[in-house]
């Protein structure tokens, strides 16, 4: 297991380096002088010349890359063109919202996805199963922003139960009660992903149900509920755990949209706003941070998978 962990960790390095090259080249691929691009339309020629010198644009491109990477490794992605503050501070400012949103969403996914999936599998073929699978497929087909807009319309505008947008920090007045601002966004974000987990739990439980050890458990007269939980569900969870990496990727993508719909001051909205503002240092920084995070989560998921199912690391 330790050797496997080490091997996987080592394999991360080249991919991450290649991703950093892409993120670095990204600004250089935009037509025009990168310094002018970074400074935006309002920059004077003197500003551009000064930044060009500072950025070392007169040096060979690989030298520039290593200098940039050196800074990036120390958490220094430069200064935001829009906010005039270090990029890392800008990203950190959105972290609270996005992390809380992710946690709440995961809770929804687990409390909605797993029980419905289990129910669907244990009553395979019944109307409960058909309703659950059909519903899951339908929710997986709904654009997140559309669902979000209608949730705002119904629960915030018509019923007035929840705030429609924004999120004050939980450190501000209201404390943990401010989490109610994240209730509709997290539900929006959870819907398509919970749908995915329902389908996965159902499919993997149906797979496990066909295995010999389950037949043995049934044959020795165990209670069906006990077989379902201890023998089928526990083994089915292994492949569900493996899917959480995929879910996380979907979550990041959809968080970008959801945070925009609900005007949440998170990292997802920062991505979109920075792109629309052409704030390239922030785009570079935030994309690299998200890619790192995504890869680390994938690694953790894979390691958890190998730990749950020892056959994986032996392959």
């Amino acid at each position, binding site marked *: 297991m330790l050797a496997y962990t080490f091997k996987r960790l080592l394999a991360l390095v*080249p*991919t*991450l380096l*290649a*991703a950093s090259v*892409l993120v670095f080249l*990204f600004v250089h*691929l*935009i037509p025009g002088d990168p310094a002018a691009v970074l400074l935006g339309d309002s920059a004077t020629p003197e500003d551009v010349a000064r930044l060009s010198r500072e950025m070392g644009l007169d040096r060979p491109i690989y030298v520039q890359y290593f200098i940039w990477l050196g800074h990036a490794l120390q958490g220094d992605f430069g200064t935001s063109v829009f906010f005039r503050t270090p990029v890392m501070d800008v990203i950190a400012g959105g972290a609270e919202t996005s992390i809380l949103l992710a946690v709440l969403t995961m809770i929804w996914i687990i409390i909605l996805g797993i029980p419905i999936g289990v129910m669907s599998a244990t009553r395979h073929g019944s109307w409960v199963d058909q309703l659950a699978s*059909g519903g899951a*497929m*339908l929710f*997986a*087909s*709904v*654009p*997140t*922003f*559309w669902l979000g*807009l*209608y949730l*705002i*319309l119904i629960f915030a*505008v018509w019923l007035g139960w929840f705030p429609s947008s924004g999120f004050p920090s939980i450190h501000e007045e209201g404390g943990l009660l401010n989490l109610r601002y994240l209730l509709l966004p997290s539900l929006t974000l959870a819907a398509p992903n919970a*749908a*995915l987990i329902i*389908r996965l739990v159902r499919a993997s439980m149906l797979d496990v149900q066909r295995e010999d050890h389950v037949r043995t458990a049934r044959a020795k007269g165990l209670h069906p509920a006990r077989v379902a939980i201890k023998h089928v569900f526990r083994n089915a969870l292994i492949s569900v755990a493996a899917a959480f990496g995929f879910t996380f*990727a*979907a979550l*990041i*993508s*959809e968080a*970008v*949209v959801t945070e*925009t*719909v609900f005007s949440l001051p998170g990292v997802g909205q920062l*991505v*979109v706003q920075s*792109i*629309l503002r*052409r704030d390239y240092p922030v*785009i570079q920084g935030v*994309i690299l941070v*998200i*890619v790192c995070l*995504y*890869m680390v989560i994938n690694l953790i998921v894979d390691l958890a998978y190998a730990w749950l199912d020892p056959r994986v690391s032996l392959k």
Partner: protein
Amino acid sequence: MSFLHSVRDIFRGRAMGTAGLIWLCVILFAALAAPWIAPFDPLDIDPVNRLTEPGWPHLFGTDHYGRDTFSRCIYGARMTMLIGLGSVAFALVTGGAVGMLSAYFTRLGNFLMRGIDVLMAFPALLLALVLMTLLERSVVNTIIVIGIVYATTTARILFGMTLKLKREVFIDAAVCSGAGHGSILFRHILPNLISPLLVQASFIFAFAQLQAAALDFLGLGLPPEVPSWGNMLSESRIYVTRAPWLLLYPGLLIILSVFSMNMVGDAMRDSMDPRFKDDIAGV
């Protein structure tokens, strides 16, 4: 076996898949016959009749410029088909080529598949967003960007399948009988991959709709003047409290189309070669 026979075999006894196929045919028909079905010009501005409720003569009401929502929905079907078919074609051709060649020529594969790994390190929408910043908003660019995103998954799936096929005895037989690389790839391997490719195509089509709608919504997809369902939603979001129906119809059309495509994909996967079933993941 003729084409119609195989279609019949796939959809026989699969009610949801059949319903999905019928709906997609309706969308295709609307896309092709849009100028004859749409009662109004989708771009015609009529400031007097802005934000009118659904009724006659504006079946789905009008938007903030007084444009007829029903006609725009009909023309939106064109964009749906164009984006869907375009990105599917792009993803299958590029991703398929990379995947097949990588599995067949192992040394090249080591290099190409690492590149795919790097692209897959970016979450799908994020990759699309980054690529869109480099390009102008246009139909072709949207197709290319979504195509690239799904080319990565297609490459990985086809890589696995081609590796499996390469170990089959009939490939050894072809090698022994002196078949060249081109002949083995195109006459022996590719025909076996057609049905999984079609299944993959249906899922990409479904995902592409959601991605394109998301890009439109964020203001980074199709040009704003193009009547696509995503753009319609994006434009009318600020009128959601005054004219909620503006969001209803394009939204329902997206949901129905994505749902139908997934159903068709499911039906096709169920009737597919069992060897490859685990390789393709739908929704």
